[in-house]
């Protein structure tokens, strides 16, 4: 929103929060799904997020991150994924056997490639 519009009217148009599944891009998801097939098993129970150390004191939320990847919403993930310390506690909890640590590792790689248009 241009500063002049907001100055002129005193408000700007709120942006939508809606995830539009028809305009989001799932290349990152495809990349991760191929290299770490256990990613598909996640049923979003949140056990990983509950055990996560980084999640206690930062906004890092592994369950939500995985959900965003599945939807193709990459923008919120750029910094998010760097917060994981790869400690592996989540791996111990996951009831479906998702290799969560590797999902994060592959995800950072995928996001970097996505931004460089290499996917």
């Amino acid at each position: 929103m241009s500063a002049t519009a907001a100055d002129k009217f005193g408000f700007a148009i709120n942006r939508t929060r809606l995830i539009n599944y028809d305009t989001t891009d799932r290349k990152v998801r495809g990349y991760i799904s191929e290299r770490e097939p256990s990613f598909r098993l996640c049923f979003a129970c949140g056990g990983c997020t509950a055990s996560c150390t980084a999640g206690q004191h930062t906004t890092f939320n592994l369950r939500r991150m995985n959900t965003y990847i599945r939807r193709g919403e990459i923008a919120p993930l750029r910094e998010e994924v760097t917060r994981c310390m790869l400690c592996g506690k989540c791996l111990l909890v996951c009831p479906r056997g998702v290799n969560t640590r590797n999902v994060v590792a592959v995800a950072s790689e995928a996001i970097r490639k996505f931004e460089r248009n290499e996917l």
Partner: protein
Amino acid sequence: MKIDGKIAIWKEYQKEIADDHFFYVRSCVRQNFFPGSETAFLNIMRDVLKKDVYEHPCHTTCTGIGYHSDIVPIETTMTVVARQFALMTEAGYENLLPSCITSFGLYTEIMDTWHHFPEVEERIRVNLRKATGREFKIPKNLAHASDVIYKFRKEIAASAKFKLINKNTGEPLKVVDHIGCHYAKMFPSKGIGGAEYPYVLAGMVEEWGGKVIDYPERRHCCGFGFRQYLVQANRGFSIACSREKFESMMPYKPDMIITNCPGCPMFLDRWQYVINEMEGKRYGPNNEGIPVFTYEEVAGLILGSDPWELGLQMHQTDCEPVLDKMGIDYDPEEKYNLKKEIKRATSSSFVKV
């Protein structure tokens, strides 16, 4: 699209609308935005349909606008509404006819509250008695002005000089019908067609020759909502709501929008200007906007009223494209000639004291 499915739903949500002898209560702000609408309504009711519509000179705002903005407490609002009922009782009327959709929602809500909580009704009676010495009866029938025009849409069509048809192509005009949230979303059974597929305006459009557009954001609020709009910091949210609707209806290339609430046409009309200023985007063809009308204006137009007497010059988004499509004659020079005398309502029952 299976129209039978919709027709089945419309048939289910029907309601009692009085036939005659209405007590008309005006909108507090509507006449500022669309000044010709209420006059057009009264002219149609009295001169065309020959109905008895009475306006008490002492009636006030229902304070719905204050109630929904958290400024007026509910008990005060109820007492003001009770006074409206008292004026109606004193004038000998039983059929309440609000001009504003928020009023309609408010009267419905209050009567429903009193029905479930008679002790509240009793308290309000005491309030009114103490404050003004008045007593009241609950209205026998409550119908919004758009319900009444819907009820008499065939009679209006019979007297119509114009149709909602593009005279150049012979095709029906594509019309977006936008219903005020307070009409059916609160009490779906009190709206014609219910809340999902309201029929009150769609019925008018179809009867008058137009074609109704069903687009994904049909049900979305325009964003008026009182409190969020009245506070400047919240207006970004309000305008975003209207914008959602415009983006969604644009691919269907509507010719016009018809509404039945005071706030909705104001928003849908004015926000097109603001969005154009902020983003440079317009939603109609040929770099135009989509003209927005109240149902009274549409009824007035098809009955042959002069567009400037209907107040269409007050619209932010120019209405001329629709007038041209319908083949309505108007004098562009007279558009802002406000000194011209407007024909007044001639019915003798206009003011009774």
